């Protein structure tokens, strides 16, 4: 059995208890809702863009530790990146969560997001960690539909 602390790393606990960028943004350029029907997690994501660069990202909502920390750290990670860069980051993040640890893929650039590597051992929690990212995708597509993990 894996150690609990692999999942609930101190960084994750910290972001859950004091989520960064946790506020609505009334003048957002992009906005989307995310919902994980399994656990009832709901979040709203707000983005401001300059050209194709994300200049600001905030969120509100209620969710589990993993989904809240993931949203918090995502808003930090994508700020200043272009849309393409953010999408690449999500791709790497997804690989981090779902691919056996010894595969030889470069996950350079995930930086702090690597604390979510422990989620790999908890397949039912992958959806919690990716909810914010799915919502980001939806927001960037200006998709008015809710993002859902299920």
């Amino acid at each position, binding site marked *: 059995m894996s150690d609990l602390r692999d999942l*609930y790393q101190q960084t994750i606990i910290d972001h*859950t208890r004091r989520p960064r960028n946790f506020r609505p943004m009334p003048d957002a350029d992009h906005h989307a809702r995310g919902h994980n029907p399994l*656990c009832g*997690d709901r979040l709203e994501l707000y983005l401001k863009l300059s050209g194709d660069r994300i200049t600001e990202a905030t969120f509100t909502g*209620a969710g589990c*530790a993993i989904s809240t920390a993931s949203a918090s750290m995502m808003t930090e990670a994508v700020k200043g990146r272009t849309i393409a860069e953010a999408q690449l980051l999500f791709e790497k993040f997804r690989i981090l969560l779902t691919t056996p640890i010894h595969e030889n893929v470069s996950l350079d650039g995930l930086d702090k997001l690597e604390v979510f590597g422990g989620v790999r051992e*908890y397949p039912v929690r992958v959806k919690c960690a990716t909810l914010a990212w799915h919502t980001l995708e939806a927001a960037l597509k200006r998709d008015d539909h809710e993002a859902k993990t299920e």
Partner: protein
Amino acid sequence: MIEAPTAAGTQSAAPPVWNAADVRRDFPILHHVDRPVAYLDNAATSQKPDAVIAATTRYYKSANANIHRGVYRLSVEATDAFEAARTKVAAFIGAPDRDELIFTGGCTESINLVAMTWGLENLRKGERIILTQMEHHSNIVPWQLLAQRTGAVIEVVPISAAGELDIGAYQQLLTQKAALVAVTHISNVLGTINPIAVMSKMAHEHGAKILVDGAQSVPHMPVDVKQLGCDFFAFAGHKMCGPTGIGGLWAPRGILEAMPPYQGGGDMISTVEFAGSTWNKIPHKFEAGTPNIAGAIGLGAAVDYLSHLDMRQVAHIEAQLLAYAEKQLQTIPGLRFVGAAADKASVISFTLDGIHPHDIGTILDQEHVAIRTGHHCCQPLMDFYHIPATARASLAFYNTPADIDALVNGLRRVIEVFA
């Protein structure tokens, strides 16, 4: 720890109670070597005693044949075993007539069957279907689908903060063209035991029929459909020590005979011509095709097992466990119970301040404690309490104070992780 219950602790009329350790020995999964778990998700599904597993295995190994149509011995034996199971299950819920017990795939199918037969035939535009705020999705969505087709209207009996039905409001709703009441016997989230006998009487005074969702009651207390006075009673085998894929529906003969069939196919017919077909008598009219033969036989064995334990004893033991669990859980800082009905079964929903139920579930799992977290198929009830989810520990007679201690210690660990 509470003492293992003894004969001395029970009412003099009740038979002496059994020993928890003996009962646990009947359940192979509870002493599974790889991973002994404090299994506290009994409201989702129960574990299975050896007797049930063996009954289905025996059927496949020595008596497997299709039923109701064969003249050869194997088929006759399979038919007899299947029909004997019907007799047992009918008796277990107090059905006055064994032909009134229809085997279905589960509680959900039983409710859908009523909606799509009795419901489609009898519900008129504008008539009321009365549900309650604490219903399981399986006792909501079939009525929504029916309402869409018929123009019937759904009304909801509100509940108090403690999780008890507002009977005054129920009375009020009954006066407004109520055709059907569909209510759970025991809430799978709150544990509330609803006053069905009273509600049936009130429904009938207003000319409404009443369906009872017994998924959570049959496994945990003595049930007698005559005493409940209801018109339909639905339940699931897998929650009462039986196999998956089998359940039951009871209704009185008169109602069943007047109902149109549900699914069409083999066995439910009397004659088939392309110009038209005629139906078999009950219960077969509602059992199209090859049924879950092994499942029914397994459910029969489950009923034998539970009858042997005695459902009064089951309820008694579970009440003791519940009292112990509530007392111990009160020592956990930030723990809030969801549901505090006066009449309550051994289901405990709770939240921990600042910690999401999903995280509680994951951490408890690491501590070998299995509870359920989420909306428990009761989204409208979550909406009522303005919470996305709860953590739920649901007890069965084979649980022990040690299981509850494991839960309590696990919760302390949860709080530590988030400290």
